[in-house]
Protein backbone atom coordinates (compact mmCIF):
# COMPACT_ATOMS: atom_id res chain seq x y z
CA UNK A 1 0.00 0.00 0.00
CA UNK A 2 2.79 2.41 0.88
CA UNK A 3 4.34 1.33 -2.36
CA UNK A 4 1.24 2.32 -4.23
CA UNK A 5 1.21 5.89 -3.03
CA UNK A 6 4.84 6.68 -2.48
CA UNK A 7 4.81 10.03 -4.22
CA UNK A 8 4.22 12.53 -1.43
CA UNK A 9 1.90 15.01 -3.10
CA UNK A 10 -0.07 12.24 -4.75
CA UNK A 11 -0.37 10.32 -1.58
CA UNK A 12 -1.74 13.23 0.41
CA UNK A 13 -4.16 14.23 -2.33
CA UNK A 14 -5.45 10.70 -2.70
CA UNK A 15 -5.96 10.18 0.98
CA UNK A 16 -7.84 13.42 1.43
CA UNK A 17 -10.01 12.79 -1.61
CA UNK A 18 -11.06 9.31 -0.52
CA UNK A 19 -11.70 10.28 3.08
CA UNK A 20 -13.63 13.39 2.04
CA UNK A 21 -15.76 11.32 -0.33
CA UNK A 22 -16.50 8.91 2.48
CA UNK A 23 -17.39 11.60 4.99
CA UNK A 24 -19.45 13.76 2.64
CA UNK A 25 -21.36 10.86 1.16
CA UNK A 26 -22.05 8.79 4.27
CA UNK A 27 -21.33 10.53 7.55
CA UNK A 28 -22.55 14.05 6.82
CA UNK A 29 -26.06 13.15 5.61
CA UNK A 30 -26.69 11.01 8.68
CA UNK A 31 -25.52 13.73 11.05
CA UNK A 32 -27.62 16.15 9.01
CA UNK A 33 -30.83 14.22 9.47
CA UNK A 34 -30.41 14.06 13.25
CA UNK A 35 -29.70 17.79 13.50
CA UNK A 36 -32.58 18.62 11.17
CA UNK A 37 -35.10 16.72 13.24
CA UNK A 38 -34.06 18.63 16.38
CA UNK A 39 -33.53 21.89 14.51
CA UNK A 40 -36.64 23.46 16.00
CA UNK A 41 -36.02 22.04 19.46
CA UNK A 42 -37.55 19.21 21.43
CA UNK A 43 -41.18 20.25 21.32
CA UNK A 44 -41.73 20.08 17.54
CA UNK A 45 -39.77 16.83 17.45
CA UNK A 46 -42.01 15.41 20.12
CA UNK A 47 -45.11 16.69 18.34
CA UNK A 48 -44.00 15.09 15.08
CA UNK A 49 -43.48 11.67 16.54
CA UNK A 50 -46.50 11.76 18.84
CA UNK A 51 -48.81 12.40 15.90
CA UNK A 52 -51.02 9.27 16.06
CA UNK A 53 -50.60 8.63 12.34
CA UNK A 54 -46.82 8.72 12.74
CA UNK A 55 -46.50 6.28 15.61
CA UNK A 56 -49.22 4.06 14.19
CA UNK A 57 -47.17 3.84 11.01
CA UNK A 58 -44.03 2.96 12.96
CA UNK A 59 -45.83 0.36 15.09
CA UNK A 60 -47.45 -1.20 12.04
CA UNK A 61 -44.08 -1.39 10.30
CA UNK A 62 -42.45 -3.08 13.26
CA UNK A 63 -45.34 -5.54 13.68
CA UNK A 64 -45.42 -6.58 10.02
CA UNK A 65 -41.63 -6.77 9.82
CA UNK A 66 -41.60 -9.07 12.85
CA UNK A 67 -44.15 -11.38 11.19
CA UNK A 68 -42.21 -11.39 7.92
CA UNK A 69 -38.97 -12.08 9.80
CA UNK A 70 -40.48 -15.01 11.71
CA UNK A 71 -41.77 -16.52 8.47
CA UNK A 72 -38.33 -15.99 7.02
CA UNK A 73 -36.65 -17.75 9.91
CA UNK A 74 -38.80 -20.86 9.35
CA UNK A 75 -38.63 -20.91 5.58
CA UNK A 76 -35.00 -19.81 5.44
CA UNK A 77 -33.79 -22.43 7.90
CA UNK A 78 -35.62 -25.15 6.02
CA UNK A 79 -34.46 -24.04 2.58
CA UNK A 80 -30.88 -23.40 3.65
CA UNK A 81 -30.79 -26.87 5.11
CA UNK A 82 -32.38 -28.59 2.10
CA UNK A 83 -30.13 -26.82 -0.40
CA UNK A 84 -26.94 -27.78 1.45
CA UNK A 85 -27.76 -31.26 2.69
CA UNK A 86 -29.82 -32.89 -0.05
CA UNK A 87 -28.89 -33.64 -3.63
CA UNK A 88 -31.88 -33.50 -5.94
CA UNK A 89 -32.68 -32.40 -9.47
CA UNK A 90 -32.87 -28.61 -9.78
CA UNK A 91 -30.89 -27.93 -6.62
CA UNK A 92 -28.33 -25.68 -8.28
CA UNK A 93 -31.03 -23.80 -10.13
CA UNK A 94 -32.92 -23.10 -6.92
CA UNK A 95 -29.72 -22.12 -5.17
CA UNK A 96 -29.01 -19.42 -7.77
CA UNK A 97 -32.61 -18.31 -7.68
CA UNK A 98 -32.31 -17.44 -3.98
CA UNK A 99 -30.60 -14.15 -4.83
CA UNK A 100 -33.34 -13.06 -7.23
CA UNK A 101 -34.91 -10.58 -4.77
CA UNK A 102 -31.51 -8.86 -4.42
CA UNK A 103 -31.11 -8.56 -8.18
CA UNK A 104 -34.65 -7.52 -8.97
CA UNK A 105 -35.71 -3.86 -8.61
CA UNK A 106 -38.04 -3.66 -5.62
CA UNK A 107 -40.64 -1.75 -7.62
CA UNK A 108 -40.75 -4.67 -10.07
CA UNK A 109 -41.13 -7.03 -7.12
CA UNK A 110 -44.08 -4.97 -5.89
CA UNK A 111 -45.68 -4.99 -9.33
CA UNK A 112 -45.31 -8.78 -9.52
CA UNK A 113 -47.09 -9.22 -6.21
CA UNK A 114 -49.80 -6.81 -7.30
CA UNK A 115 -50.37 -8.76 -10.52
CA UNK A 116 -50.28 -12.12 -8.81
CA UNK A 117 -52.49 -11.37 -5.83
CA UNK A 118 -54.50 -8.39 -7.07
CA UNK A 119 -58.31 -8.33 -7.27
CA UNK A 120 -58.36 -9.43 -10.92
CA UNK A 121 -56.00 -12.33 -10.43
CA UNK A 122 -56.83 -15.97 -9.76
CA UNK A 123 -55.46 -16.00 -6.21
CA UNK A 124 -56.98 -12.63 -5.37
CA UNK A 125 -60.39 -13.71 -6.62
CA UNK A 126 -60.22 -16.94 -4.66
CA UNK A 127 -59.22 -15.16 -1.45
CA UNK A 128 -61.98 -12.62 -1.89
CA UNK A 129 -64.55 -15.40 -2.08
CA UNK A 130 -63.47 -16.70 1.31
CA UNK A 131 -63.50 -13.16 2.60
CA UNK A 132 -59.77 -12.50 2.87
CA UNK A 133 -58.45 -9.32 1.34
CA UNK A 134 -54.80 -9.44 0.35
CA UNK A 135 -53.76 -6.54 -1.82
CA UNK A 136 -54.04 -3.09 -0.20
CA UNK A 137 -54.22 -4.83 3.17
CA UNK A 138 -51.72 -6.17 5.68
CA UNK A 139 -51.14 -9.60 4.08
CA UNK A 140 -49.78 -7.99 0.91
CA UNK A 141 -47.31 -5.92 2.92
CA UNK A 142 -46.09 -9.07 4.68
CA UNK A 143 -45.69 -10.85 1.33
CA UNK A 144 -43.75 -7.88 -0.05
CA UNK A 145 -41.44 -7.81 2.97
CA UNK A 146 -41.01 -11.58 2.82
CA UNK A 147 -40.07 -11.35 -0.85
CA UNK A 148 -37.39 -8.68 -0.47
CA UNK A 149 -35.82 -10.24 2.63
CA UNK A 150 -35.99 -13.84 1.42
CA UNK A 151 -32.23 -14.39 0.82
CA UNK A 152 -30.92 -13.13 4.19
CA UNK A 153 -31.47 -16.12 6.50
CA UNK A 154 -30.63 -18.67 3.80
CA UNK A 155 -27.36 -16.97 2.91
CA UNK A 156 -26.44 -16.55 6.58
CA UNK A 157 -26.82 -20.20 7.56
CA UNK A 158 -25.42 -21.87 4.43
CA UNK A 159 -21.72 -21.23 5.18
CA UNK A 160 -22.22 -22.49 8.75
CA UNK A 161 -23.77 -25.72 7.52
CA UNK A 162 -21.02 -26.19 4.99
CA UNK A 163 -18.32 -25.72 7.60
CA UNK A 164 -20.01 -27.96 10.12
CA UNK A 165 -18.13 -30.98 11.26
CA UNK A 166 -20.14 -33.99 10.19
CA UNK A 167 -18.48 -36.25 12.73
CA UNK A 168 -20.31 -34.55 15.59
CA UNK A 169 -23.60 -35.40 13.98
CA UNK A 170 -22.52 -38.96 13.33
CA UNK A 171 -21.32 -39.32 16.91
CA UNK A 172 -24.76 -38.28 18.12
CA UNK A 173 -26.40 -40.93 15.95
CA UNK A 174 -23.94 -43.56 17.07
CA UNK A 175 -24.68 -42.76 20.67
CA UNK A 176 -28.30 -43.54 19.92
CA UNK A 177 -29.80 -40.06 19.64
CA UNK A 178 -32.93 -39.81 17.54
CA UNK A 179 -33.02 -37.69 14.39
CA UNK A 180 -34.99 -34.95 16.04
CA UNK A 181 -32.74 -34.96 19.09
CA UNK A 182 -29.62 -34.77 16.93
CA UNK A 183 -31.10 -31.89 15.00
CA UNK A 184 -31.96 -29.84 18.05
CA UNK A 185 -28.89 -30.56 20.14
CA UNK A 186 -26.15 -30.68 17.49
CA UNK A 187 -27.20 -29.10 14.21
CA UNK A 188 -29.46 -26.33 15.42
CA UNK A 189 -26.90 -24.73 17.78
CA UNK A 190 -24.46 -24.53 14.88
CA UNK A 191 -26.99 -22.73 12.73
CA UNK A 192 -28.25 -20.43 15.48
CA UNK A 193 -25.79 -17.52 15.05
CA UNK A 194 -26.55 -17.54 11.32
CA UNK A 195 -30.28 -17.63 11.91
CA UNK A 196 -30.04 -14.73 14.37
CA UNK A 197 -27.89 -12.46 12.27
CA UNK A 198 -29.87 -13.34 9.13
CA UNK A 199 -33.12 -12.60 10.93
CA UNK A 200 -31.87 -9.24 12.16
CA UNK A 201 -30.69 -8.21 8.72
CA UNK A 202 -34.04 -9.29 7.32
CA UNK A 203 -35.85 -7.31 9.99
CA UNK A 204 -33.88 -4.14 9.42
CA UNK A 205 -34.41 -4.48 5.68
CA UNK A 206 -38.10 -5.12 6.32
CA UNK A 207 -38.69 -1.97 8.34
CA UNK A 208 -36.79 0.05 5.72
CA UNK A 209 -38.52 -1.39 2.66
CA UNK A 210 -40.31 1.07 0.44
CA UNK A 211 -40.49 0.14 -3.25
CA UNK A 212 -42.21 -3.21 -3.02
CA UNK A 213 -44.57 -2.10 -0.25
CA UNK A 214 -45.72 1.24 -1.63
CA UNK A 215 -47.23 -0.46 -4.68
CA UNK A 216 -49.22 -3.12 -2.82
CA UNK A 217 -50.10 -1.49 0.50
CA UNK A 218 -52.83 0.94 -0.54
CA UNK A 219 -51.24 3.36 1.97
CA UNK A 220 -54.33 4.19 4.03
CA UNK A 221 -53.18 6.38 6.95
CA UNK A 222 -53.51 4.60 10.28
CA UNK A 223 -54.31 1.28 8.58
CA UNK A 224 -51.85 0.22 5.90
CA UNK A 225 -49.45 3.15 5.90
CA UNK A 226 -45.99 1.96 6.90
CA UNK A 227 -43.23 4.22 8.21
CA UNK A 228 -41.17 4.65 5.04
CA UNK A 229 -44.28 5.52 3.03
CA UNK A 230 -45.32 7.92 5.79
CA UNK A 231 -41.94 9.64 5.51
CA UNK A 232 -42.37 9.87 1.75
CA UNK A 233 -45.79 11.43 2.22
CA UNK A 234 -44.41 14.02 4.64
CA UNK A 235 -41.69 14.95 2.14
CA UNK A 236 -44.27 15.28 -0.64
CA UNK A 237 -46.41 17.56 1.52
CA UNK A 238 -43.39 19.74 2.31
CA UNK A 239 -42.94 18.82 5.94
CA UNK A 240 -39.25 17.84 6.01
CA UNK A 241 -39.01 18.35 9.75
CA UNK A 242 -41.77 15.81 10.44
CA UNK A 243 -40.23 13.41 7.92
CA UNK A 244 -36.86 13.79 9.62
CA UNK A 245 -38.34 13.12 13.08
CA UNK A 246 -39.89 9.79 12.03
CA UNK A 247 -36.71 8.97 10.09
CA UNK A 248 -34.70 9.41 13.26
CA UNK A 249 -36.89 6.87 15.05
CA UNK A 250 -36.48 4.33 12.26
CA UNK A 251 -32.76 5.02 11.86
CA UNK A 252 -32.03 4.61 15.55
CA UNK A 253 -33.82 1.27 15.52
CA UNK A 254 -31.87 0.11 12.46
CA UNK A 255 -28.54 1.21 13.91
CA UNK A 256 -29.21 -0.75 17.09
CA UNK A 257 -29.94 -3.83 15.01
CA UNK A 258 -26.87 -3.41 12.82
CA UNK A 259 -24.73 -2.96 15.90
CA UNK A 260 -26.15 -6.15 17.43
CA UNK A 261 -25.41 -8.09 14.25
CA UNK A 262 -21.83 -6.84 14.34
CA UNK A 263 -21.59 -7.93 17.95
CA UNK A 264 -22.85 -11.44 17.14
CA UNK A 265 -20.53 -11.79 14.20
CA UNK A 266 -17.61 -10.32 16.13
CA UNK A 267 -18.06 -12.88 18.89
CA UNK A 268 -18.17 -15.68 16.34
CA UNK A 269 -15.03 -14.40 14.67
CA UNK A 270 -13.29 -14.15 18.03
CA UNK A 271 -13.81 -17.77 18.94
Amino acid at each position, binding site marked *: *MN*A*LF*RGKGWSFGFRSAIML*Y*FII*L*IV*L*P*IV*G*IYTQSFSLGWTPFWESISDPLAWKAVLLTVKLAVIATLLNVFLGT*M*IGWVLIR*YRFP*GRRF*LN*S*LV*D*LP*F*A*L*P*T*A*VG*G*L*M*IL*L*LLGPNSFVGGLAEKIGIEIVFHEPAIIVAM*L*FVTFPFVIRAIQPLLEEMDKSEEEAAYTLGAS*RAKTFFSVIFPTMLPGILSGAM*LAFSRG*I*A*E*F*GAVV*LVAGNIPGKTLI*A*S*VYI*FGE*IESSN*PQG*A*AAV*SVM*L*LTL*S*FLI*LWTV*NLIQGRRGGQ
Partner: protein
Amino acid sequence: MMRRLWITLTYIVFGLLLIAPLIKIFTGSWAEGWNGFIEGITRPQSLHALMMTGIIVVVVTVLNTVFGIMLAMYLVRAEWIGRRIKRLLNSLVDLPFAVSPVIGGLMIVLMLGPNTIIGTMFEDAGIKIVYALPGMILATLFVTFPLMVREVMPVLQEIGAQQEEAASTLGAYSWYTFWKVTWPSIRWGVIYGVVLTVARSLGEFGAVLVVSGNIMNKTQTATTLVYQDVENFNVVAANGVALVLAAFSVGLLLLMEWAKKRKEVH
Protein backbone atom coordinates in the same frame (compact mmCIF):
# COMPACT_ATOMS: atom_id res chain seq x y z
CA MET B 1 -39.68 -40.00 3.59
CA MET B 2 -38.73 -36.82 5.50
CA ARG B 3 -36.29 -35.99 2.76
CA ARG B 4 -39.04 -36.08 0.13
CA LEU B 5 -41.24 -33.86 2.25
CA TRP B 6 -38.58 -31.17 2.79
CA ILE B 7 -37.59 -31.08 -0.86
CA THR B 8 -41.22 -30.80 -1.95
CA LEU B 9 -41.82 -28.01 0.55
CA THR B 10 -38.75 -26.16 -0.72
CA TYR B 11 -40.02 -26.42 -4.29
CA ILE B 12 -43.43 -25.12 -3.21
CA VAL B 13 -41.95 -22.06 -1.46
CA PHE B 14 -39.75 -21.23 -4.44
CA GLY B 15 -42.62 -21.76 -6.82
CA LEU B 16 -45.00 -19.49 -4.96
CA LEU B 17 -42.63 -16.79 -3.84
CA LEU B 18 -40.15 -16.47 -6.71
CA ILE B 19 -41.07 -18.41 -9.84
CA ALA B 20 -44.78 -17.59 -10.07
CA PRO B 21 -44.25 -13.81 -9.83
CA LEU B 22 -41.48 -13.99 -12.41
CA ILE B 23 -43.70 -15.86 -14.85
CA LYS B 24 -46.53 -13.46 -14.16
CA ILE B 25 -44.48 -10.47 -15.20
CA PHE B 26 -43.61 -12.20 -18.47
CA THR B 27 -47.18 -13.21 -19.26
CA GLY B 28 -48.59 -9.93 -17.96
CA SER B 29 -46.68 -7.82 -20.42
CA TRP B 30 -48.08 -9.89 -23.31
CA ALA B 31 -51.64 -9.43 -22.03
CA GLU B 32 -52.39 -7.11 -24.93
CA GLY B 33 -50.15 -8.95 -27.34
CA TRP B 34 -46.82 -8.01 -28.83
CA ASN B 35 -48.11 -4.57 -29.79
CA GLY B 36 -49.11 -3.70 -26.25
CA PHE B 37 -45.62 -4.56 -25.05
CA ILE B 38 -43.89 -2.61 -27.82
CA GLU B 39 -46.14 0.38 -27.27
CA GLY B 40 -45.42 0.25 -23.56
CA ILE B 41 -41.68 0.44 -23.94
CA THR B 42 -41.42 2.72 -27.00
CA ARG B 43 -43.38 5.56 -25.46
CA PRO B 44 -41.12 8.63 -25.33
CA GLN B 45 -41.23 8.64 -21.54
CA SER B 46 -40.21 4.96 -21.38
CA LEU B 47 -37.23 5.51 -23.65
CA HIS B 48 -36.21 8.59 -21.68
CA ALA B 49 -36.60 6.77 -18.38
CA LEU B 50 -34.52 3.83 -19.58
CA MET B 51 -31.85 6.27 -20.78
CA MET B 52 -31.77 8.00 -17.38
CA THR B 53 -31.41 4.64 -15.66
CA GLY B 54 -28.60 3.74 -18.07
CA ILE B 55 -26.69 6.96 -17.33
CA ILE B 56 -27.08 6.52 -13.59
CA VAL B 57 -25.94 2.89 -13.71
CA VAL B 58 -22.80 3.72 -15.69
CA VAL B 59 -21.75 6.79 -13.67
CA VAL B 60 -22.50 5.20 -10.30
CA THR B 61 -20.76 1.93 -11.15
CA VAL B 62 -17.59 3.68 -12.30
CA LEU B 63 -17.39 6.01 -9.27
CA ASN B 64 -18.35 3.35 -6.77
CA THR B 65 -15.80 0.91 -8.17
CA VAL B 66 -12.89 3.35 -8.09
CA PHE B 67 -13.67 4.81 -4.68
CA GLY B 68 -14.73 1.46 -3.26
CA ILE B 69 -11.42 -0.24 -4.16
CA MET B 70 -9.39 2.70 -2.85
CA LEU B 71 -11.30 2.89 0.40
CA ALA B 72 -11.06 -0.86 0.93
CA MET B 73 -7.28 -0.64 0.48
CA TYR B 74 -7.01 2.19 2.98
CA LEU B 75 -9.19 0.45 5.53
CA VAL B 76 -7.11 -2.72 5.30
CA ARG B 77 -3.59 -1.48 4.63
CA ALA B 78 -3.10 2.15 5.59
CA GLU B 79 -0.73 2.69 8.49
CA TRP B 80 -1.50 6.37 8.87
CA ILE B 81 -4.96 5.64 10.30
CA GLY B 82 -5.03 4.55 13.92
CA ARG B 83 -6.52 1.16 14.81
CA ARG B 84 -9.47 2.64 16.64
CA ILE B 85 -10.35 5.05 13.86
CA LYS B 86 -10.03 2.26 11.34
CA ARG B 87 -12.50 0.18 13.28
CA LEU B 88 -14.90 3.12 13.54
CA LEU B 89 -14.69 3.85 9.80
CA ASN B 90 -15.12 0.16 9.12
CA SER B 91 -18.43 0.07 10.96
CA LEU B 92 -19.57 3.30 9.27
CA VAL B 93 -19.22 1.67 5.85
CA ASP B 94 -22.32 -0.45 6.49
CA LEU B 95 -24.54 2.48 7.46
CA PRO B 96 -26.34 2.74 4.10
CA PHE B 97 -27.56 -0.85 4.59
CA ALA B 98 -29.40 0.26 7.71
CA VAL B 99 -30.91 3.37 6.17
CA SER B 100 -34.24 3.18 4.37
CA PRO B 101 -33.80 4.41 0.78
CA VAL B 102 -36.49 7.03 1.35
CA ILE B 103 -34.50 8.38 4.27
CA GLY B 104 -31.35 8.34 2.13
CA GLY B 105 -33.16 10.52 -0.39
CA LEU B 106 -34.49 12.78 2.34
CA MET B 107 -30.96 13.35 3.63
CA ILE B 108 -29.85 14.63 0.26
CA VAL B 109 -32.88 16.90 -0.05
CA LEU B 110 -32.23 18.28 3.44
CA MET B 111 -28.56 18.93 2.73
CA LEU B 112 -28.60 20.10 -0.85
CA GLY B 113 -32.21 21.05 -1.52
CA PRO B 114 -33.18 24.43 -3.00
CA ASN B 115 -33.76 25.97 0.46
CA THR B 116 -30.36 25.06 1.91
CA ILE B 117 -27.14 27.05 1.96
CA ILE B 118 -25.21 24.66 -0.26
CA GLY B 119 -28.19 24.22 -2.57
CA THR B 120 -28.56 27.97 -3.18
CA MET B 121 -24.81 28.26 -3.72
CA PHE B 122 -24.91 25.68 -6.47
CA GLU B 123 -28.07 27.14 -7.92
CA ASP B 124 -26.40 30.55 -8.19
CA ALA B 125 -23.62 28.84 -10.09
CA GLY B 126 -26.27 27.40 -12.41
CA ILE B 127 -26.07 23.81 -11.17
CA LYS B 128 -29.18 22.08 -10.01
CA ILE B 129 -28.64 19.12 -7.71
CA VAL B 130 -31.94 18.12 -6.18
CA TYR B 131 -34.70 17.36 -8.71
CA ALA B 132 -31.96 16.83 -11.29
CA LEU B 133 -29.46 14.19 -12.39
CA PRO B 134 -26.62 15.04 -9.93
CA GLY B 135 -28.87 14.45 -6.94
CA MET B 136 -30.11 11.16 -8.37
CA ILE B 137 -26.53 10.01 -8.88
CA LEU B 138 -25.63 11.04 -5.32
CA ALA B 139 -28.61 9.15 -3.94
CA THR B 140 -27.67 6.00 -5.84
CA LEU B 141 -24.02 6.34 -4.79
CA PHE B 142 -25.20 6.48 -1.19
CA VAL B 143 -27.21 3.27 -1.33
CA THR B 144 -24.59 1.31 -3.31
CA PHE B 145 -21.65 2.52 -1.24
CA PRO B 146 -20.96 -0.58 0.89
CA LEU B 147 -21.22 -3.14 -1.91
CA MET B 148 -17.75 -2.76 -3.44
CA VAL B 149 -15.91 -2.11 -0.18
CA ARG B 150 -17.41 -5.20 1.40
CA GLU B 151 -16.42 -7.43 -1.52
CA VAL B 152 -12.81 -6.24 -1.75
CA MET B 153 -11.90 -5.92 1.94
CA PRO B 154 -11.98 -9.62 2.89
CA VAL B 155 -9.81 -10.56 -0.10
CA LEU B 156 -7.22 -7.93 0.79
CA GLN B 157 -7.18 -9.14 4.38
CA GLU B 158 -6.72 -12.70 3.26
CA ILE B 159 -3.82 -12.18 0.87
CA GLY B 160 -1.86 -10.00 3.30
CA ALA B 161 0.65 -7.30 2.40
CA GLN B 162 3.79 -9.42 1.98
CA GLN B 163 3.79 -9.74 -1.79
CA GLU B 164 3.08 -6.06 -2.30
CA GLU B 165 5.87 -5.12 0.09
CA ALA B 166 8.26 -7.49 -1.64
CA ALA B 167 7.46 -5.96 -5.01
CA SER B 168 8.00 -2.45 -3.76
CA THR B 169 11.25 -3.36 -2.00
CA LEU B 170 12.47 -4.71 -5.30
CA GLY B 171 11.85 -1.24 -6.68
CA ALA B 172 8.64 -1.75 -8.62
CA TYR B 173 6.61 1.38 -9.26
CA SER B 174 3.42 1.72 -7.31
CA TRP B 175 0.99 1.33 -10.19
CA TYR B 176 3.02 -1.57 -11.45
CA THR B 177 2.76 -3.23 -8.03
CA PHE B 178 -0.96 -2.67 -7.99
CA TRP B 179 -1.60 -4.11 -11.44
CA LYS B 180 0.81 -7.02 -11.20
CA VAL B 181 0.42 -8.04 -7.57
CA THR B 182 -2.77 -6.71 -5.99
CA TRP B 183 -5.19 -6.63 -8.91
CA PRO B 184 -4.98 -10.32 -9.90
CA SER B 185 -6.04 -11.38 -6.43
CA ILE B 186 -8.88 -8.91 -5.95
CA ARG B 187 -10.11 -9.15 -9.54
CA TRP B 188 -13.03 -11.53 -9.00
CA GLY B 189 -14.13 -9.76 -5.87
CA VAL B 190 -14.20 -6.50 -7.83
CA ILE B 191 -16.19 -8.06 -10.66
CA TYR B 192 -18.70 -9.44 -8.18
CA GLY B 193 -18.91 -6.02 -6.56
CA VAL B 194 -19.52 -4.41 -9.96
CA VAL B 195 -22.37 -6.81 -10.70
CA LEU B 196 -23.95 -6.08 -7.31
CA THR B 197 -23.56 -2.32 -7.86
CA VAL B 198 -25.14 -2.49 -11.31
CA ALA B 199 -28.06 -4.52 -9.96
CA ARG B 200 -28.64 -2.16 -7.07
CA SER B 201 -28.34 1.07 -9.08
CA LEU B 202 -30.59 -0.35 -11.82
CA GLY B 203 -33.26 -1.11 -9.27
CA GLU B 204 -32.91 1.82 -6.88
CA PHE B 205 -36.31 3.34 -6.35
CA GLY B 206 -37.02 4.98 -2.99
CA ALA B 207 -34.01 7.28 -2.78
CA VAL B 208 -34.26 8.29 -6.43
CA LEU B 209 -38.00 8.91 -6.20
CA VAL B 210 -37.52 11.39 -3.34
CA VAL B 211 -34.56 13.20 -4.88
CA SER B 212 -35.77 13.32 -8.48
CA GLY B 213 -39.30 14.59 -7.97
CA ASN B 214 -40.22 12.02 -10.65
CA ILE B 215 -40.73 14.53 -13.46
CA MET B 216 -41.72 12.79 -16.69
CA ASN B 217 -39.22 13.04 -19.54
CA LYS B 218 -36.83 14.84 -17.23
CA THR B 219 -35.87 13.06 -14.05
CA GLN B 220 -37.91 9.89 -14.36
CA THR B 221 -36.05 6.59 -14.19
CA ALA B 222 -37.29 3.17 -15.24
CA THR B 223 -38.33 2.17 -11.73
CA THR B 224 -40.09 5.45 -10.93
CA LEU B 225 -41.89 5.19 -14.28
CA VAL B 226 -43.17 1.73 -13.32
CA TYR B 227 -44.43 3.28 -10.08
CA GLN B 228 -46.17 6.12 -11.88
CA ASP B 229 -47.78 3.79 -14.43
CA VAL B 230 -49.16 1.61 -11.66
CA GLU B 231 -50.50 4.65 -9.82
CA ASN B 232 -52.21 5.69 -13.07
CA PHE B 233 -53.69 2.18 -13.50
CA ASN B 234 -51.70 1.71 -16.70
CA VAL B 235 -50.61 -1.78 -15.71
CA VAL B 236 -49.80 -3.14 -19.17
CA ALA B 237 -47.37 -0.30 -19.88
CA ALA B 238 -45.84 -0.70 -16.43
CA ASN B 239 -45.40 -4.37 -17.23
CA GLY B 240 -43.44 -3.67 -20.38
CA VAL B 241 -40.85 -1.55 -18.59
CA ALA B 242 -40.82 -3.95 -15.64
CA LEU B 243 -40.14 -6.82 -18.00
CA VAL B 244 -37.11 -5.02 -19.43
CA LEU B 245 -35.81 -4.46 -15.89
CA ALA B 246 -36.58 -8.03 -14.85
CA ALA B 247 -34.76 -9.42 -17.89
CA PHE B 248 -31.69 -7.36 -16.96
CA SER B 249 -31.89 -8.59 -13.37
CA VAL B 250 -32.06 -12.21 -14.41
CA GLY B 251 -29.03 -11.62 -16.64
CA LEU B 252 -27.21 -10.05 -13.69
CA LEU B 253 -28.19 -12.98 -11.52
CA LEU B 254 -26.52 -15.35 -13.97
CA LEU B 255 -23.43 -13.13 -14.00
CA MET B 256 -23.46 -13.15 -10.20
CA GLU B 257 -23.43 -16.95 -10.17
CA TRP B 258 -20.58 -17.04 -12.64
CA ALA B 259 -18.53 -14.46 -10.75
CA LYS B 260 -19.17 -16.21 -7.45
CA LYS B 261 -17.85 -19.46 -8.83
CA ARG B 262 -14.73 -17.79 -10.21
CA LYS B 263 -14.26 -15.96 -6.90
CA GLU B 264 -14.23 -19.27 -5.05
CA VAL B 265 -11.70 -20.79 -7.41
CA HIS B 266 -9.22 -17.92 -7.13
